[in-house]
């Protein structure tokens, strides 16, 4: 319990975040659409954005959130803006600092307040993400606020991983990724998920099982 609190504190202290739960870059190249999804039992998110410049993208997203004890459920629909604040293109690596913000409507049920208690509020979701990647290692940290009147579901995640081997540009590269994340007000636990990531020039998918035995699936697609 003490270890869990300590880790949660470190997560919140040291990390920055992203919009769609720190999968990779949260937008594609100029004039491209990017679709992203992140699905598990208690958190499901889909997102589409369009890059109007190499650094700016506008989009829409929908998120379903549920507490571990299943007494709280929320659905969020939002308009989003993603900005590449800074990119470091190095000879053998790349690092990025991203901002993602959204504004939308959150609806929910809160049975812990009153059976069938329903609400509908405006939510804002500013967040930041830092990631670093080579052809063999990957690290990302993200923190995103999910705030509405009397609601705080801030989301924090850290991911790290390595590729099993280098591949040619047109081959599929497998990675092992470990993610730790927390959703404030929905879960007291740190969700830890080891995942297998497959990267190809056309698609990006991840699948794993978290420390509660629940399956998780992520994808990204650029068109």
């Amino acid at each position, binding site marked *: 319990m003490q270890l869990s609190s300590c880790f949660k504190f470190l997560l919140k202290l040291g990390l920055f975040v992203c919009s769609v739960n720190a999968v990779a870059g949260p937008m594609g*190249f100029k004039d*491209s659409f990017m679709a992203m999804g992140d699905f598990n039992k208690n958190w499901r998110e889909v997102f589409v954005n369009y890059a109007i410049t190499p650094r700016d993208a506008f989009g829409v997203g929908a998120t379903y959130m549920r507490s571990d004890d299943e007494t709280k459920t929320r659905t969020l629909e939002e308009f989003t803006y993603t900005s590449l604040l800074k990119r470091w*293109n190095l000879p053998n690596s790349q690092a990025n600092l991203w901002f993602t913000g959204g504004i939308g409507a959150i609806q929910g049920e809160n049975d812990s307040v009153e059976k069938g208690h329903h609400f509908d509020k405006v939510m804002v979701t500013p967040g930041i993400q830092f990631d670093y990647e080579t052809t063999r290692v990957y690290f990302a940290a993200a923190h995103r606020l999910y705030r509405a009147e009397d609601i705080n579901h801030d989301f924090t995640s850290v991911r790290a991983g390595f590729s099993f081997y280098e*591949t040619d540009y047109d081959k599929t590269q497998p990675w092992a990724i470990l993610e730790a994340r927390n959703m404030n007000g929905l879960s007291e636990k740190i969700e830890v998920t080891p995942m297998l990531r497959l990267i190809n020039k056309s698609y990006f998918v991840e699948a794993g099982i978290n420390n509660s035995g629940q399956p998780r699936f992520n994808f990204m697609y*650029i068109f």
Partner: protein
Amino acid sequence: MKKLLLASSIIAALFSQAAFATQTIKANVNGMVCAFCAQGIEKKMRALSQTKDVYVNLKQRIVAVELKDGQTLSNDTVKDLIKDAGYEVTSIEISSHPIEHIKAEMESK
């Protein structure tokens, strides 16, 4: 007369070969570490009417664009397109070899 015709043929052949010699633009690119992220470079290059073929090598950090016969493409255009895809060109060289040759050369390293 025969000599004149022969000389004309040789000159025409030389000029046509020069005009349609293979031209491949080879760019060294920083930050290119992930195929999924670098797909923008390939898509932008292939969208050009001058492009015959594109080759990307993440390990050697190379993007090669082979041009169609008689076509030209400025270095600045290549740099701008790669920048739009999110990367940085550190140098550019022009090769008279086709992509297949460059690919074989890169993969033998």
